[in-house]
């Protein structure tokens, strides 16, 4: 892959020129909450924040949107009203999360709504500062080699810039004067140093080796019931997890007409109604069954299918769940057969 070098002070000028492609969005922090917002430039962004509350999946797959307008005659697809966006400041785990979403939404039956937004969004990654909730070291997602258009690694004075796509390369060419191909010995040393530094930052206690077997063995473990006693079925974990893709569909009819919209919105397998079928039968009536489905999907089933977990270690479940149920506590509880306090 092409790796270029850019002086740090040139970033604002680069972003300014990139804005010709589309709206610029980046992480901003207000009252200690970080979220992606539309920005004018670098000065409004908070590149030190470890994670946004909602992952960038919301740009590719909005919490609620209209799929079709309908009347008696039939259904008319609603696409085309998506703005072109540049997302700046995505962390490696965010990009790994999007790669998993790509797998789900773009392979076998491509989802045109996701595809359109993916097509109209440029992903510009940025290196991150891990905190004590980050677990990407355990899911092998602490660095990223694909999925982005550009990736900026902050080496104090310089950025090393990975060029991941032809479109990323086009952005570079708009300000070719800001980039250099001349990497020297010091750049390699600085980069090695950076990787060492990053790896030393991880404080979370989590080890996911052997998880598929442990899930298999622990299928009937009382640990699931103990966790279920705490869980509120609030579904927050699904909203914040970058790899949760489930959704529901509803027809909204305009009062007094036969016209309306078919809308799609985020759902969670933690909700009681998730597996209810006609006649009221619920395949997962018990909270323990729903909790087990969520974690089995992330840490066992997906590994069986794709050779890697459907968890990218972003730590959002850690910072979000009100009762401390998350990838770290669940995997630990299953291994030690005891729910920690």
């Amino acid at each position, binding site marked *: 892959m092409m790796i270029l070098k850019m002086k740090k002070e040139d970033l604002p000028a680069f972003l300014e020129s990139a804005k010709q492609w589309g709206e610029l969005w980046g992480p901003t922090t207000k009252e200690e909450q970080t979220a992606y917002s539309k920005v004018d430039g670098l000065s409004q962004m908070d590149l030190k924040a470890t994670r946004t509350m909602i992952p960038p999946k919301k740009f590719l797959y909005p919490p609620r949107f209209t799929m079709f307008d309908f009347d008696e005659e039939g259904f008319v697809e609603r696409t085309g009203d998506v703005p072109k966006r540049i997302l700046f400041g995505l962390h490696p785990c965010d990009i790994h999360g999007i790669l998993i979403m790509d797998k789900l939404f773009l392979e076998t039956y491509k989802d045109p709504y996701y595809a359109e937004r993916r097509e109209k969004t440029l992903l510009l990654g940025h290196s991150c500062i891990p905190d004590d909730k980050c677990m990407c070291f355990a899911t092998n997602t602490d660095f990223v080699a694909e999925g982005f258009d550009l990736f900026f690694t902050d080496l104090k004075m310089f950025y090393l810039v990975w060029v991941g796509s032809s479109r990323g390369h086009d952005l570079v060419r708009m300000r070719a004067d800001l980039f250099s191909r001349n990497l020297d010995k010091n750049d390699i040393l600085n980069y090695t140093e950076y990787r060492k530094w990053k790896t030393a930052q991880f404080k979370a206690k989590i080890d996911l080796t052997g998880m598929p077997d442990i899930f298999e063995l622990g299928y009937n473990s009382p640990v699931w019931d103990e966790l279920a006693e705490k869980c509120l079925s609030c579904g927050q974990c699904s909203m914040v997890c970058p790899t949760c893709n489930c*959704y*529901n*569909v509803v027809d909204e009819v305009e009062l007094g007409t036969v016209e309306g919209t078919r809308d799609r919105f985020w759902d969670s397998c933690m909700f009681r109604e998730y597996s209810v079928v*006609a006649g009221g039968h619920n395949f997962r009536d018990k909270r323990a069954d729903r909790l087990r489905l969520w974690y089995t999907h992330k840490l066992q089933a997906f590994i069986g*299918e794709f050779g890697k977990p459907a968890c990218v270690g972003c730590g959002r479940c850690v910072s979000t769940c009100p009762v401390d149920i998350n990838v770290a506590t669940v995997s630990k509880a299953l291994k030690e057969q005891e729910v920690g306090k």
Partner: protein
Amino acid sequence: MKKLCVVLDEREVQDNPFQPDMWRIVRRYPLTSDVNFYQARPVDVDEALKMNYLPGQFIMLSIPGEGEAPFCISSTPSRPGLLEFCIRKMGTLTSSLFDLKENQTVGIRGPYGNSFPIDKMEGKDIMIVAGGMGVAPLRSLLLYILDNRDRFGKVTYLHGAKNPGEMLFREEFFQLKERDDLNCLLTVDKDDTGKWTERTGLITTLFKELGPIDSKNTYAAVCGPPIMYKFVMENLVKLGIPKHQILMTLERRMKCGVGKCGHCAIEYLYTCIDGPVFTYWDVLHMKELIGRGVSDKVIA
């Protein structure tokens, strides 16, 4: 393992798999007190022959404003140009379907799902065991086999219903009894009419009449209410039919039919794209189906 990667520039937005096409209901009549039969043709006649499907597949059917739900196709692709369904009144959408009149339109997209493994079943003896609404997908299979009769070995059709009034496609199956290339056995749990000429008793009693079976050379396809499975599976295994040659269909909540919405997941499988037809051997591995408290509800 497949690579988790997309090449952005090669990607383009294709057909929308969620787009329902409009079909016209051309026939509609009751099969039982709460099950209706529907026959549909595409509004756009050019589409009529484009619906390529196989027995065991399903479609997503919509009424604008009332929602969308999965239904098995009960017709056979060997008689193209139309689709047939049998639909039980259960809730919002199905009730609206019952209010629908002939010549009105519905949205249909599909076909979806894996279908019965027709190529593997060709040349083999076939045993079909249908109970209650399980007839919906199995009628498609049976008609397909009869239309391609010389490509299959011995064919046995076992059908059970609660009582004569509840038997779906009663007249059609009585006619099939006249054929000499098919062993068609019908039973009702209880005859409340006094006029029933066929067997009475649970569907499992029909097994006693089967005579010798070339079990290793047989594919069985089973569909019915949950309790039926338990006993039928036992009987089929006793007959010596290999578990991977016993086929069944599973029913789960579905919102998309194309492996995106997540609702029909069973462990790492999606009922909509990996199923709805599974072998008994697959199902034996689904811990969730045999697991604690989770009942084994298969298509009813």
